């Protein structure tokens, strides 16, 4: 299992080639009971990593800690050179603008169009309207939904809704993309479609972490895999040969 170096060893201002580092990270919701325990981890830029484990193994907790939805009980989390464990609440939005997040239940605004759902990630940072429109169109084209941009999410299939969520996660060109069971609600054909989009994002330089319990899917893509059990990182399997 690869072990991270000392805190700040690489010296990069914004995480350099290792945008995610975790040092002895534990998360406990109840005294004596750990959702995550003593996890050490490094993920390199552009790497595609599966996080696997049974329900309750700590996959979702790990992702939540990375986008500061939770604070670690112990340890340090360095995202792009910044210590998330010590981040003030008012600094969290700036962190999240560097991270795209995709969920199993899509989390789309049902009253807004596809275009508005994607564009919101640009609106929150005040991107000029013309640029926001053009970037939204580009990313919708990338996920094959440009012709559906004026539709509401409810008129789309599950796979299409997840593609909208991925487009929203990618539209601001984040360095890190986190996906929590992104194919959990989809049939096998759509699963491959979504996974191909995530792999393409990693190929383009985005660091991608995908939490899943779908082991056949993990075998199919043969990427680096972190396996959690009872909150502990019990295996860090490198990517298969030729990947």
């Amino acid at each position, binding site marked *: 299992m690869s072990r991270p170096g000392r805190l700040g060893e690489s010296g990069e201002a914004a995480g350099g080639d290792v945008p995610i580092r975790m040092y002895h990270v534990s998360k406990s919701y109840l005294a004596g009971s750990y959702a995550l325990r003593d996890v050490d981890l490094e993920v390199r830029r552009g790497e595609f990593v599966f996080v696997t484990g049974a329900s309750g193994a700590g996959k979702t907790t790990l992702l939540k800690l990375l*986008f500061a939805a939770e604070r670690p009980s112990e340890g340090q989390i360095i995202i792009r050179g910044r210590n998330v464990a010590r981040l003030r*609440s*008012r600094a*969290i*939005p*700036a*962190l*999240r*603008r560097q*991270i795209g*997040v995709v969920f199993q239940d899509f*989390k*789309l*605004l049902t*009253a807004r169009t596809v275009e508005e759902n994607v*564009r*919101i*990630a*640009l*609106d*929150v*940072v*005040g*991107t*000029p*309207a013309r640029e*926001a429109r053009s970037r939204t169109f580009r990313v919708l084209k990338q996920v094959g939904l440009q012709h559906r941009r004026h539709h509401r999410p409810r008129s789309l299939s599950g796979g299409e809704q997840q593609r909208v969520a991925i487009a*929203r996660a990618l539209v*601001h060109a984040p360095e890190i993309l986190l996906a929590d069971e992104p194919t959990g609600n989809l049939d096998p054909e759509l699963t491959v479609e979504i996974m191909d989009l995530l792999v393409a994002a990693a190929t383009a330089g985005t660091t991608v972490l995908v939490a899943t319990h779908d082991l056949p899917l993990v075998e199919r893509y043969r990427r680096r895999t972190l396996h959690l059990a009872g909150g502990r990182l019990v295996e860090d399997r490198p990517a298969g040969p030729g990947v």
Partner: protein
Amino acid sequence: MRGLPSRIRWAVSAALGGLVANPVTTAVAVITLSATLVLVGGFWMALSGLETVLDRAAGQMRIVAWVDESLDAEAREALRRRVAELPGVAAVDLVDPGEAERRFRERFGARFPILDVLEGEPLPASLEIVPGAGARAPEAVARLRAAVSELPGVEELGYGSEWLERYASVLDLMRGLAVGIGAVLVLATLLIVGSTIRLAVHARREELEILDLVGASRAFIATPFLLEGLIEGVAGGLLAAVGLRLAVALAEPLLGDGLLWLGSFEGPGPRVASGLALVAAGGLLGLVGSAAAVAGGLER
């Protein structure tokens, strides 16, 4: 809205969307705001009208100082000048015995022929003192009276405006009541507006969660709710202004001159100013109510 900066466009569309999506709570907030403003505004109009009446009456108030009969014309004039120099005195008229007799005859004529049987100058000279605009309050008038009564040559003081003091104390009581009732109404309105915004925050939990995920700042998330409160407040203020104006217009033919003391709605200028004040007060109430709700409802 295509040309607007993205954050403003989002805030406006989210606020309008929220208002339209919850028509009942929006209507409750607007009507409550409007009712409060009508009550507070109506009370304020009545109070300011009564104050106008008091000011006008106080402007005609005179303190009469009867002059010692032994003073000759020169001494009376010297006394007049001394009184005129006292603080709070706007003007002093010297009414000599001849003028006093002329006024008496003019006012009472043949009904009181007593002057015909008296010899010499039956009426004493007097000074009619006009208090300045800043010295018409009961305490100031009392101070002025004390100062005048201490001057040598002043025999007695007359003061025909005692009712003004009673009027002023009733007005003070009304002012106190207005502040108390107004404070209770404003507090109740803030609670109701706050509740409607809290409902809106609750109804849009999912939206807020998504905004939070994509890195929206607290200000970005809060702005649509503040805007909703502001819009509700302004709408309530407009409704109150129109309602009050209509009430005055309907009451005028029934009460006629009885409504003249509603000075704040006299003439187009004051009408517009009063209306704008109500709209501004409504906007402020809406904004404060929603700010309080948002502060409590958007805890990370």
